[in-house]
């Protein structure tokens, strides 16, 4: 049986179909306007999720690229610094004066050696200034401590310096010239030492050349020489006139002097030490020692070595540069991150000293002595400059045979460590190259991701417009149909 199509039913169906047609057209129109294939999760949950994942990857890659660029530029700065340093080192190595000394062909006069020493000192300072360079606001070669200047010239501290001497403290003995007089009010108050001779214990002045046998022979008449008593070997003590005596007291007795403190060190009142080992309280006069992040670079102290070991091998500054960063037990897996900590000390040849057997110059027979030579190229240059500056100004003669020998050993070490510095510069070059490649890779990845999600999200304009036009055509047709859906019925043909 044919279903009875009623006017009401037809209208109801038409209304629904027209609405659907309008809805389809609205969707197509929305696609054209927004240029997107979908505008909600509901339209395509799987595709929307995929696009968000791609967008997140894109964002992550973009962040990594930003950091990579920053690090790459830091490495560029570091690389340039190393280039400068290499040039400085080369300048020294090729310096005519320097080569002349080494070859012995044209030994310069004193002014030449002194000048070379000054030049070398200046280059050493220059290298350190370069190594203290910054990229942005961060020190490039400070490892993971980039807010602190890495290399500093610190005055050589006097380890025996006693800031506030305490006469009661046995550990402060070096600060006092005399020992306190027993039973004096000060001694009773617990003081052990004094710098006031009046308060010191008074003792007979000891004859430093005292010869007991000689003295006994004179006193026993075995030695009958009348001037024997004027001999410096005579007498346990010294009299005020400088001759000897065994009598402590009496008119011809020994000279009574304050008891000297054998532990007394005149340098103990100085904070710093000069190059010649004497004390001073002026930083400017003090011998400059190179420090890296607060640790003397040439120190062989166990703790200092441990600290340096940590700086060079233990400390890291890992960054996520898109190498698949992941963690294990809460710590970054090293192969998945990039270590951006540039330890300046590493690039200057290292830390501490090395014991080397050095041939003594002009020694007959030839002999070798053990010397401690620094590993750090700046320390080598500093020491060489010191030796050169110690040369006699008039004729350039070496201050000592030992210094001459040390200089030649240092010159050899300079060459070795210059080569090492170059080698480490090359290492940096490799890392810079990696950063450049990584930058390109990240850029490509970001572009690829961007294209991927755009391909999924962005509507093809031609398809979208065609779809819209077709939907529009359908809707128009539906409207036309609507115009005639009720236009004809039997009512219109009735003629009663």
């Amino acid at each position, binding site marked *: 049986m044919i279903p009875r*199509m009623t006017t009401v039913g037809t209208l109801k169906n038409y209304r629904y179909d027209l609405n659907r047609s309008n809805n389809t057209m609205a969707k197509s129109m929305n696609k054209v306007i927004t240029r997107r294939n979908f505008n*909600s999760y509901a339209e395509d*949950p799987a595709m*929307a999720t995929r696009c968000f994942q791609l967008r997140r990857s894109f964002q992550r890659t973009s962040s990594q690229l930003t950091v990579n660029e920053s690090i790459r530029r830091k490495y560029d700065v570091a690389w340039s610094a190393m280039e400068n340093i290499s040039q400085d080192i080369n300048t020294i190595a090729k310096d005519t004066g320097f080569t002349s000394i080494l070859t012995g062909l044209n030994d310069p006069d004193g002014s030449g050696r002194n000048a070379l020493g000054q030049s070398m000192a200046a280059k050493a300072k220059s290298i350190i200034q370069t190594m203290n360079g910054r990229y942005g606001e961060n020190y490039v070669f400070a490892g993971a401590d980039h807010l602190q200047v890495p290399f500093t010239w610190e005055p050589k501290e006097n380890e025996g310096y006693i800031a506030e001497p305490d006469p009661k403290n046995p550990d402060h003995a070096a600060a006092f010239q005399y020992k306190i007089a027993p039973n004096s009010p000060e001694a009773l108050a617990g003081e052990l030492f004094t710098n006031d001779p009046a308060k010191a214990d008074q003792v007979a002045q000891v004859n430093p050349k005292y010869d007991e046998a000689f003295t006994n022979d004179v006193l026993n008449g075995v030695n009958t020489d009348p001037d024997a008593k004027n001999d410096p070997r005579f007498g346990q003590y010294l009299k005020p006139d400088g001759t000897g005596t065994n009598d402590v007291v009496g008119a011809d007795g020994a000279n009574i002097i304050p008891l000297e403190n054998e532990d007394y060190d005149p340098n103990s009142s100085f904070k710093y030490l000069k190059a010649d080992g004497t004390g001073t309280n002026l930083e400017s006069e003090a011998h400059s020692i190179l420090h890296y992040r607060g640790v003397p670079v040439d120190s062989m102290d166990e703790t200092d070595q441990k600290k340096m070991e940590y700086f060079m091998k233990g400390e890291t500054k*890992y960054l996520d540069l898109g190498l698949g960063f992941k963690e294990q037990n809460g710590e970054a897996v090293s192969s998945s991150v990039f270590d951006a900590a540039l330890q300046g000390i590493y690039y200057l040849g290292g830390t501490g000293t090395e014991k080397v057997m050095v041939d003594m110059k002009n020694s007959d027979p030839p002999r070798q002595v053990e010397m401690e030579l620094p590993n750090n190229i700046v320390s080598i240059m500093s020491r060489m400059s010191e030796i050169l500056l110690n040369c006699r100004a008039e004729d350039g003669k070496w201050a000592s045979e030992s210094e001459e020998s040390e200089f030649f050993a240092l010159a050899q070490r300079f060459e070795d460590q210059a080569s090492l510095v170059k080698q480490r510069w090359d290492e940096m070059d490799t890392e810079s190259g990696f950063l450049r490649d990584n930058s390109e890779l990240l850029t490509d990845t970001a572009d690829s991701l961007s294209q991927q999600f755009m391909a999924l999200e962005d509507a093809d304009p031609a398809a979208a417009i065609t779809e819209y036009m077709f939907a529009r055509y359908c809707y128009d047709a539906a409207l036309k149909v609507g115009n005639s859906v009720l236009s004809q019925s039997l009512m219109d043909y009735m003629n009663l």
Partner: protein
Amino acid sequence: MSIGTFGAFTQARLAIYAAQTGISVTGNNISNINTPGYTRQRLDQTSLYTVGSDRYYAEGDVRVGQGVLVNSLSQIRSPFLDIRFRKENAAVGYMDGLLEGLDSIASILDEVGKGESSKDEEGFGIIGMELDKIRDALEQLTDQTGHYEYDNTVRKNAEALCRKLNTYANKLQQVYDNTVTQLHQDVDDINGLLTRIRNLNEEIRKCDIHGDSALELRDERNLAIDELSNLINIQVDYSMEEISYGVEVEKLTIRLGNSNPDGAVETDSSVLVDGIYGSQLILEQVPETRKLDPKDTSTWPYADANGNPVMTEAEAAESLVKNLKYDPNVTDPADERFGEYLKEDGTGTNNKNLAKKEPAANPDYKPYVTASGQPTDKISEARMVDSPNYNITVSELRDKSNRIHYVTTKSPEVLIQDAAEIQKAIDALKKGGSITENNKPTDGDVTITTYRASAQGNPKWARYLPYLDAAGNPVGDIKDAATDANGKATPNPAHYPYLVNGELSMTKGENGVDNPAYEARYLVRDKDGNITGSTNSVADAAKDYYKEIYVRTASKPVELDDNDLHGRIQAHRELLTEAGEFTDTSVITKDGQTGPYRNADENASSKRGIVYFQKSLDLLANQFANAFNEANQGFLVDPEGNYITTGVNDKGEEIGVPVTVVGTDATGAEVPGVTATLGKKTDLKDLPPEIVRTLQDATGLVYDPAKGNSQEIIDAYLKGQKYDADGKPTLEGDDLKANAKGIFRGGVLFSNHNAGDDPTGITASNISISHTWANQDLLVRSFECPVEGLEPASGQSDNILHMLGVLGQDMKYIPNTLPDTAGASDMIMFEGNFEAMWNKIGSTLGADQKLTGNMLDDHYQRALEIDTNRDSVSAVDFNDEAMNLMMYAKSYNAACRLMTTIDSVLDKLVNNTGLTT
């Protein structure tokens, strides 16, 4: 019989009348073509034919019909299509309501195509973008560590994320609140429709009684039922109701549509309308309760042995359940007033050992909230609010005058045999013979017991059995009787009341005497019940008593199961209650439980409403905050991973040295040579017992390898905290600092309020950056110090990198980890990083939307198809009506012509017949 002379006029008149009525009906159909719910009407007409036979037979008498009769108007409807449409309409209502809710949620959570106005951020979403910005800020911070502006960028982005999460949570709450309003509106709409249908039923019933078909009222009722079917799944039945003997009218019954998938549940067929009685839906109201607040003892339900408030039942002391009806003067154990305490079986006792035990209650417990928001312990003062599961009850059926609906059931009459019952019957019969009692006053059930007494029949009464057969048994037919030698039938002596001259006789006559063997109709008994004779007098006879019980059961409210409803109202309920994996499983997974599931949906794990999305967002916020709070707190370590404390070197300078623990013996004395340093990888199981003892004594905690609380003890030791026997910390402030063994760094980055640093109970609606972080730089860049150092290097950023790791790390999202979802599943609902979780929320919602949208489309199309089919039966069509117009118009014309013809014929007969020219 032949038609009378003018009978033909009547025939024409009836035809004209029928055609005219037909035109009216057609006109009415055309007029109402646009009236919603209008069912096309049809004129029912029959041929008028007089039934009967003539008094005298006449050959050749042809019976002709006498015209047409208009009997009635009827509607053309298909009940089957109505049923199908209403079922489908409920599904449309359900899907439409659900999709409407999901769309509202999606307007908040769906970030596809959204993003900030700047080109670079367009399409990256909002929350997703904020997570990205935090990650980007952390990435930059790993490079530019130590520069405050980069820390500040992380903080500002975190703050923005918190605000966006707060906004989203607030908007979701608005959707929730709006849906609550919609649910109330649904209930009001349903109740309005139920009342309307009930009232229409009454009107239609009246019309039925008076013979009016009440078609327009039926249309109105059908329209209301259609409307109701969108809100709630219903089943509509029509039956005939006897209103008096032999008179029946149609009765309409509407039940819930058996929607519950649990076949054992019957409440899903509860009656909503039964003829002139109708019910109402009631949203269950419960007293508003206060949440357990660790800072407010008046919210703690229990008390310990000292009477101090405690939070959990486990901490509570036991108390004996007191008998509230206790009367010390009562000594009868059966009396409910006996005994100061109650036993398990509910009876009283004075023996404390037998008394039932319950957790001691906090006397100051105030679990409710008054209308003015004040705490109270009186339920009568509490503000009433919707039940948490938005439970619905179907009220009892009442008519327009608020009279309750009764169903009367009659049990078969039974013979009373119990002596006490017989006495009751005798007493009742003296007072009219029936007792009416209200069995359950609260329910309004009425029981009417009707008694009847009947004279006890005498089994030997032989009214119709005058003979004995050969075996001596009474028989009625003489042919069966035994005969004597003379062929005379043997009489039954019990049959004859008299003896006349020794012969059995039916009549006494003059010489007759009573026959002692005669048995009368009824038995006579003495007071002990012994048979003493028989009698024909009913009054003298012994009696049998019978009773017949009528029970008038009042209609009762029905508490609906969670899944009893369908349609739009259930969609709104499910939006408010369905929490998916966050559902309290204890409500629905009890062993052997088969329902009813009044307070949760047994299929809840696969259904997701607003609550699910709220909880998902809460879980994301909570997990995010916890992960970052944890990452930003710890103790400084040296390069080897040992926890450090402040020491002094040879120069008197402060340096970092490892935390060293010296072992102790049972007396607390130090054991020389037994020492250990504590590090990040230290596990107490690897340490000597002397060391473990030192750590336990210092912290008050007990090491339990099974619990794996090694790190907890080490943390407590480093922090310097000591816990009491109840596990509560005993030190705080400067005392805690003074006792610290390690160097603590960091603090809480996210808290539950921006005015404090409380990291507990963080949700999307309250997540904030902590007060401390808001006011100072709190991000810990690293916990690792250089050799002998007391601070990490200025650019060290391993902890920032770790935070990046946390952002990208796959987390396990477990529903029961939120503060108020302790009863939820402990299964992992999702594993992924924060961004993946955020995408998961969106895609889950999108998939639900898509599925619901498709199903709505499907159901809607089907409903439309069925409705079109209904229209094909019931709707008005112009072509049909045009045909009818033409048909009735032609009929009218023909009838008029008939009348003219008859007139002409009669005119010939009357005026022109017999005239001769």
